[in-house]
Each structure stands twice: as C-alpha cells, then as structure tokens.
C-alpha cells in the first residue's frame, strides 16, 4: 500500500473535489482517494494504491472529468 501525490488544476469548490475523487477512484488499482483543495490553484490529489498507479489512466480519467493533472 502506497500513497502517491499528484497536482491537479481547475478545482474551485467542494463539488469539484467530489467529481475528481470519483474519477480517480474508478482508475484500476486505486484503493483510496483524498484531495487538498486549493481553489483556483493547484490542488493536491492523494491516491492510495496497492500497486503502482497507472499514471496515464489516471491522467485520462481526470482529463475526462474536465480537470488537469500536473506533472
């Protein structure tokens, strides 16, 4: 079990947090999601997983939800 942090931009409120949490949760391998919101700035997405997270899949999921993963 490990936690990986990612930067995410485009989040403005708690609703965005819920949407992104959900999108990230659906990515294979993910076991836990939480987000530190920085409204209109770069928020931090904490992703817990048993194995290494498929970053490409995560990026696509976040992108599909309308937000952007920062490398």
């Amino acid at each position, binding site marked *: 079990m490990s936690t990986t942090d990612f930067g995410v931009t485009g989040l403005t409120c708690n609703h965005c947090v819920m949407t992104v949490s959900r999108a990230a949760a659906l990515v294979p391998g993910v076991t836990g*999601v939480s987000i530190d*919101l920085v409204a209109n700035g770069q928020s931090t997405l*904490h992703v817990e997983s048993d194995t290494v997270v498929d970053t490409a899949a995560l990026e696509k999921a976040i992108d599909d939800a309308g937000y952007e993963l920062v490398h």
Partner: protein
Amino acid sequence: MPSTHVDLALEGMTCATCAGRIEGALATVPGVTATVNFATERASIDIDGVTDATDLIAAITKVGYGARVIDRDERETEPPVDPVLTARVVVSLGLAVPVLLVSMFPELQFDGFQWLAAALTTPVVTWAAWPFHRAAIRNARHGATTMDTLVSLGVAVAYLWSMYALFFTMAGVIGMRMEMPLFGYAPHALYFESAAVVTAFVLLGRLLETRSKRSARESLTALLNTAAKSAVLLVDGREVSVPAGAVQTGDVVVVLPGGIVPADGTVIEGASAIDASAVTGESVPVPVGPGSKLIGGTVNAGGRLVIRATAVGAETELARLTRMVEEAQAGKAPIQKLVDRISRVFVPLVVALAIGGGILWFSATLDVTRSISVAVTTLVIACPCALGLATPMALLAGTGRGARSGIIIRGTDVLESTRRVTTIILDKTGTLTSGHPTVVDVAVDGVSPDTVVSSAARVEMGTDHPLARAVVAEATTRELMAETAKDVTVEPGRGVTGSLGSLRVRAGSLEWLVESGTAVPSALAVAASTWVAAGRSIVAVAHDDRLVGIIAVSDVVKPSAIEAIRALTKLGIRPIMASGDARAVADLVAREVGIAEVHAPFSPSDKRDLVARLRSEGHVVAMVGDGINDAAALAEADLGIAMGHGTDVAIESSDIVVVSRDLRRVSDAIRLARATLGTIRGNLVWAFGYNALAIPIALAGLMGPAIAGIAMALSSVFVVANSARLSAFRTS
C-alpha cells in the same frame, strides 16, 4: 505509538463546505483523525504518531484558512468574549467608581471636584454607552422603545443636565460642595454618578449575559460529535475509500460493521442488522438482507453489507428531515425579552410623567429652572441601575446551577416557554426507555432458565446481532458464560447453530425452528404469542430437535421514567407519548410509566404535525426526544428538550439539552428554568420598583441627589442576593 489530542481554533470559514475542506486537509496528515465544527470554529484532532500541531496548521493554511492551537487553560477559562465590550466594561467601571465616591461623600469633595467628575464621566456616557445610544436611535426610527432606549435616555438626560448646570449655574463654581440631602430641592444637584454607574452596570450585565450564553454553547459543543464523512466505493471488485459526498446514485458501496450508511440504498449482498434508532426511532435494530432498503445515517450494527445507492445528497431521507427541521425553526418567532416588554410601556409612561410634571410645575410657579429640574430628576431616577443586572445575574446563576446537573439552557428566550408549558410530548426510544434491547423474561420446557440462556449465549457469542448481544449480556450478568460452542454456523436473519459436546444447539427465530420441524410445547407457544402481542422480540432455543425455551428481549423502561412522569404531572403538565415503534410496544411502555395518551406508530412528520396541532389548539407544547426523527418536532415545539447522547440534529434543534439519560432531569430542567424566570421577574420588579417608588418624590420636586444613589444601591444589592439563591436549587 504516542497518541495525543489537539484542539485548534480556526479562522476564515464561511460555510459548511469550508469545514469539509479543512477536515479533508487534516485527514491527509498521517495518523490524524479530525473533526471540524463549523459553528464553533474549532477542530478536534486525535493524532497517532509523531505529527505535531505545526504540521496540522500548515495543512490548514495550505487550503487557505487560519488556525492556531488552543491550550488547555484557554479551553477551560473562557477567552474574552468581545474585546471591545470588555474594554467598555473595564473603562466605565474604572471611571464610575471615583465619580460615585466623590459625589456621594461630601468629605471627599475638593475644590473643582465637579469638573473632574464631568471629565471622568464624559468618556463613559459617550464611548462606553455608545451601543445603547445607537440601539436607541435605531429603535426610535421604528417608533419602538426598549431597554436600550431607557438606558440611553436616562444616561443622556443625567449627563446633559449636569453639564448645563456646570456651565450655566452656580454648580460650576470652584469651591462648590454638593450636599446630599435626601429630600428637598438641591439647586446645585449634579447627576454625573448616575450617568456613569448606570452605564457601567448595564454594560457589566451585558458581559455576564454573553458569558453565560457562551458557556452554554461550549457545553453543547462538547456534546456534538460529527458523523463519519467517508465511504467505501466498490469499483470492479476493488474497495476504494472516498469522501462520502463522492457517492452517486447507482454506485455500489460497502458498509463495514459499525460504519454509517453513507446514502439511502438497497442491500445487494450480506446480512446484518441496522440500528436506525437515531433516524426512525425504532428501538430494536432491524435485520436486513439482500433487497432491504436502508436509510443513510443509520448504523450498521452487524456484518459487512454491500449496497447500491438509490439517493444521495439532498435527495436522501436524512436531508429531507433536516430541511423539515430548518422550516420548523424558521417558523418559530423569537420571544421578545421581558425587560424590553416592560420598557415598551415604562419608557413612554416615564417620559409623559416627566414632561407633564415639568409643565405642571411651570404653570404653578413660572420658575423655568425648577420645572426643568423636576422633569430631569424624574427621568434620571426612573432609569434603574440594576436593570441591566436583573436578567444576566439570574441567568448566570440559573444556567450555572443547571450545568452542574447536566442541564444546558440555551438563552433567556427559553425560560418564557417553560413557564407556560401545558403539554409535554415524550419520545419513547432512548427517552422513556434505555434504547438497548435487554432480556426481560425466559420461558422453559424441561430445563432450567439458566441452561436455556447459557446454551443460547454460547452459540450466539460470535454473532453481532443485537438480540444475540442481549442474550450474551444476560448470560454474563447471570455468570453463565462458558467457552463458545463448536462448529457455529449462521443463517442470516434466522438463527445460529452450534455444538456443545454432543448436543446440537440452535438459537434464533421461532419460525425458523418450526419450519425445520421442531415441535413447540403448548406452554411455550402461549408464552410466545403473549410476548409478541406485548411487542417483545423472541429468541427461541432448541436442543437437538426439541424446543427447550424461549427468551423475551425488549427495550426496557428507564428506572427514572415513572418518577419523572409523576413529577411532570405534578408540575401541571400533561404527558403524551409519541413513538416510531409499533402500537403494542408503545402501549406497554406507556402503561408501565403511567402515560394515558399514546400516539404510535408515528413518523417524524406525524410527530411534527402533532406538535403543530396541539399548538394550534392553544396548548404550549414541550417535546422531549433524542433522535433525528424527533428533530423537526423539537424545533416546532415551544420548548424542545433533547436528551443527552442524542444526535447532533436533535441537540441543535432543541432549547434545553439534558446531558444525563435520567428522565427526572427533564422535570428538574423545567423547574429550574421556571425558578430562573421567577428570579428574573423578581429582580426586574425590584430593579424598577425602588426607582419607580422615587418617581413621585421627584415629581413633587423633593428629590435630593442622594435618593438616586440609595435606589441604585438597594436595587443592585437585591438583584445580586436574589439571584444567588438559585445556586441552592435542588434536583430530584
């Protein structure tokens, strides 16, 4: 690992979403469990490990809010309520005392003392008394007169008249000595000390009042605990923990044993029992299995459940109940403060008397100065100095006494309603009863009751079903516990099978045993049907293929309930019971505690409607409850009393919180509130009384300046002493 607790004061929160954000931020710090209370602007944090407060503050600052550590001293001794109010009190008291001394005692008067008194009084009546003037002006615009009007008027008239006398009469001459005759016209009379002391005392009263309100809120904060905010989503067979808000309709969610159901949903997989007592008021946890509908906010009391969410967020049953509470609260008109009600009549009356007296004097004597003096002294003496202390002193003593017995009274408005209460509606589960299923009877066939309880407990030991727990608890009380049965198998919602040596023991529902061909002795069948009719739940026990006994489990009446109902009746209050449970169960409890009027089964909106109906019939209704299901009724009632350990919504919707589970504290709370109100009334009568008695003297043109001082002293001493009597209040 070391475990510590930290409390943080938070800054910058504007709405409940902010609280969620901060909670989220804290949750990301390793080893941290945090709850954020938006209303009190506090975060309560448990830390497992080496994280310290600076990490937490950094995490909060990162999401855009401010935080600082509250140390133990600060939590126990109240932080200053409002620094400006405190400053006004300190400054006005500091300046008023020398003014009072120098004015009252001619021996202390020196050349030019009156100018010093004027200088010391000026900041008191302008800056310190500013809140009263501002409120008085605001009231005047609406043609209203409140206590603020009285204070502002009295202070302003006393000050302006004294200033006029200082500058334009002999009173300003250096070397003047102010004599303090009790009666008689004193041409050099100055009333600086009245202006200063009235301001100081009324401000002090305000400060005491905010303090008592705040300490009531603090006690409340300690009671409120925030429900878990996370959920476990099931995605392609994986369990993913997410914030509870991320769950959407149609999602598959895992509810772990002891976990809170995060949304309304239908069980897909698993068997368990749901403790819905907080939401629906049903006392015994309900067994659930695939297809059962669950309400979000209820607690999973048994095994792991997989559910499909059918309603989330604002659509859930819980959200609907919360909206109902908000509507009820919005419809509740605030009670106008007693002292304002008196002021509404008193102020115009005094003003009329002062003007009328002045005019009469002028028409009789044609002496302008003398006539104005009569009018002014009337206004000055009418403003009671102890007025500002009358309510807060009693409230402080009353709420302080209440807090010592676990009775939290939320403000003065509450007291008025307690006086008039005619009817009290009591919830059953958790209010009249303990809220926990307990073994109440055992019927046997051919073996001893102990054998039945012991063998049932030994097979049910591992199961977490509430009925099983009651049986195990009973066995423990009877000191019958032995090692667990072997080869235990559970049939969800039906029963448990296990082996004790060569004996096969089954414990579960009677239907289940009958279906599998177990014969039921007629005596046990009769007992079973009587118990079911009385609303009891049954655990049937079979040894091999023979039914040996049945155990009755029921929610039991609290020992304090009977006495409490008697005490309420003695106070002239009609008790009514409303319950979410079945009629038979409710009737049984009502008979036991001595309540004649029972309403069951009642949904939360039924309860609210009952309160509304009784109120429209002219009854003043108190409601006692503890669950979310009671919240709307609590808010709708004239007086809402939440029993401690209740749900947050219930506590928030109530006017009085009784921390203890002892129902007698409810009648104590009403008695104490009534006693406090009585003391406030007594205080007000005398605060106004001493001064009102002096009004005729002023109108007769005979009031010496000392009268104002004496009235001030007598009423203040009375108010303080009378309030102190509340500390001796006895609980039953």
